[in-house]
């Protein structure tokens, strides 16, 4: 049913943020009372991602509010990472990947042909599952983004680097060895460096794709603390397979299953009284 609705839908949509939900929805259509009255920062509406014709994300409709931490949970292969990577169009890298429906940032459809992907990615930073610092110095890693956006003054750059590293809570640890190779840092430090690198271009939205899954418990705790510190300043969307982590760091939680958004609401509600049976089953550990 949902797919037929999508099939009829033309690629290009209106540019206004929808205020009413479409009526023809499957029973699992999420209700999002927590965000009903708020402005949405990232808005998806009947959004599909297909890999060579096979849908990985199916008809997702959700409004992610600004300045909050939103967690996306779900079993592996549920499309949560694919959805996340659609927001800064990282899926463009994958051959045969197409989208249908609408995904908007600040009301601007992200899949119009004239879209400036570079400008988009500057507004939407991303932290990846495995720490992926460049094989350059710590300084050059953080300065990479500002440099490509045209900042060349050394003093300006070092101010940005210091500020970003401080925000990522790494400044005190590395200030004396900024010119060491970033690959010499520990895994946890590398991930915080990647966060600092993303912060250095001063994005509005920060996408985090299981940022702590490759880290040890202490580094994980440090990264979670950091997410907490950053909330309010950035719209943070974090994908995680770790439900405790979602419960600890997020204000809102979305549950994805088999490419569909099952439920989206305040984290507390999702974890204490989920509306959908599947959500409850997942949270209580019956599958996944």
């Amino acid at each position: 049913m949902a797919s037929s609705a999508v099939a009829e839908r033309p690629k290009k949509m209106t540019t206004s943020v929808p205020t009413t939900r479409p009526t023809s929805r499957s029973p699992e259509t999420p209700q999002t009372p927590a965000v009903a009255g708020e402005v949405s920062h990232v808005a998806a509406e009947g959004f599909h991602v297909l890999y060579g014709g096979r849908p990985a994300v199916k008809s997702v409709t959700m409004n992610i509010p600004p300045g909050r931490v939103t967690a996306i949970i779900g079993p592996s292969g549920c499309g949560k990472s694919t959805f996340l990577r659609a927001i800064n169009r990282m899926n463009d890298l994958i051959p045969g990947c197409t989208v249908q429906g609408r995904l908007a940032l600040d009301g601007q459809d992200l899949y119009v042909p004239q879209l400036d992907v570079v400008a988009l990615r500057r507004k939407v930073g991303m932290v990846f599952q495995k720490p992926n610092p460049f094989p350059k110095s710590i300084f050059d890693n953080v300065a990479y983004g500002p440099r490509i956006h045209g900042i060349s003054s050394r003093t300006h750059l070092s101010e940005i680097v210091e500020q970003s590293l401080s925000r990522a809570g790494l400044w005190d640890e590395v200030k004396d060895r900024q010119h060491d190779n970033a690959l010499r840092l520990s895994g946890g430090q590398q991930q915080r460096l990647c966060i600092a690198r993303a912060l250095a271009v001063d994005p509005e939205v920060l996408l985090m794709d299981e940022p702590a899954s490759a880290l040890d418990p202490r580094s994980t705790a440090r990264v979670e603390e950091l997410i907490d510190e950053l909330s309010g300043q950035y719209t943070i969307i974090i994908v995680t397979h770790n439900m405790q982590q979602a419960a600890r760091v997020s204000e809102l939680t979305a549950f994805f299953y088999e490419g569909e958004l099952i439920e989206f609401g305040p984290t507390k509600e999702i974890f204490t009284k989920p509306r959908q049976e599947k959500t409850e089953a997942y949270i209580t550990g019956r599958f996944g």
Partner: protein
Amino acid sequence: MHLRTRKIIDRSATGIGILAIVVMTAALVVLLAPIFANGTGAFVFRGTAEFRKYQSDRFDRGDREVLTTEKETLRQVRQPVYDLLHKFEHQLKNDDDLDARFGAEFPKLKREVYRLIGPPPGEALSRLERDEYGATRWDRALVQADSIVHVQEDRGLDSHGFSLKVEGPRAARYKGTSLEPMFGYVEMHLAELLRPQWTFYPQFLIDNPQDANFFGGIGPAVLGTIYLTLGAILFAVPMGVITAIYLVEYAGQGRFISLLRTCISTLAGVPSIVFGLFGLAFFINTIHVSPSKSVLAGSLTLGLLILPTIIRASEEALRAVPLAYKEAALSLGAGQWRTILTVILPAALPGILTGIIISMGRAAGETAPIIFTAAVSVGLGVKPWEVFTSPTQALSWNIYNVSTEHEAVDQIRHVQYGMVLTLVVLVLALNLTAVLLRARITRRLSG
């Protein structure tokens, strides 16, 4: 089959395998041992007084005062030899009987003696430098002295039908003549006549060859090899790396790409001599990059030869760059080109460099492609601004030339071996660099 037999077969199979490895290693040792053993002789050897004199005359090397003293000492030691020769020559003129016996042989003998200890001042046999100086190397001097003191005599044919030669003392032939004492004198006082000293001659690498490689070094050939190698790299690296970037970053799996790949592998399989002919027919005879052979034409030909290697090495290095780097750069808002230039290429650089260095080794050692496009066997070092028009010597071609087409291949073995050693060391050093670089990459990627 018996279990014991099966086990024996098993062990023998292992044995055959290990034997093959041993044979291969032995082949390498057998190949390199004489090259290293004899090649060092071009740089470190027992140089005679003639060598020092030549170096002083030609290159103004050595302490003049010492040399003047040595010259005086030598004059005194050598004078008896010259005197005996002159005396005998005088007798020959006046004695028909003696002339009949030695008239044909004596001029040759005199020439050999002069080639051993040098002619007396003002009496060079010809204008060739090899006739103005004696033996410069002690090892050659011993051979030369032997050919004076001893003589080969024909004794008919041996059982296989080959002529049989027997060595005998030449003094016996001259028994009773005034020259007889000379042979004993030369044999007894050889060291005083030539005063051999251990000599280190690193300038072998930069000196110009003199008198058809009889003296001097291999400078122009070394220089030419460097020019040709660098030229090939200059031409092939940009093309190869860009092609690799295209293959990795843009190309999908289309028909055009598979055609391109087939072309590249065909190019890799073209015999090197065909490259040489192509270089002659295309670069020189068709588009006239230079009026005739030149460093430029040779470099272009060699560049084409190493292009497939560079493409493949670069492609592999580019593919080995983790996708995560690319993702990180793109997520920060870098465009495709900026990502390639600032992240992917730097990360792939060690791998690309390895490929380049190995190709340099190949370009330095190749002979066939430059025979018709760049290489000549004589000439001085090419100046940097002459590379577009001037042909050059090159180690690889000159090794062939001085060991096959030279008029006295036996007398300049040290030059041949020195050239071979230089080339082998150059190529092995390049390969060693590549191996070390590769080890560093592996280490970096693993930790």
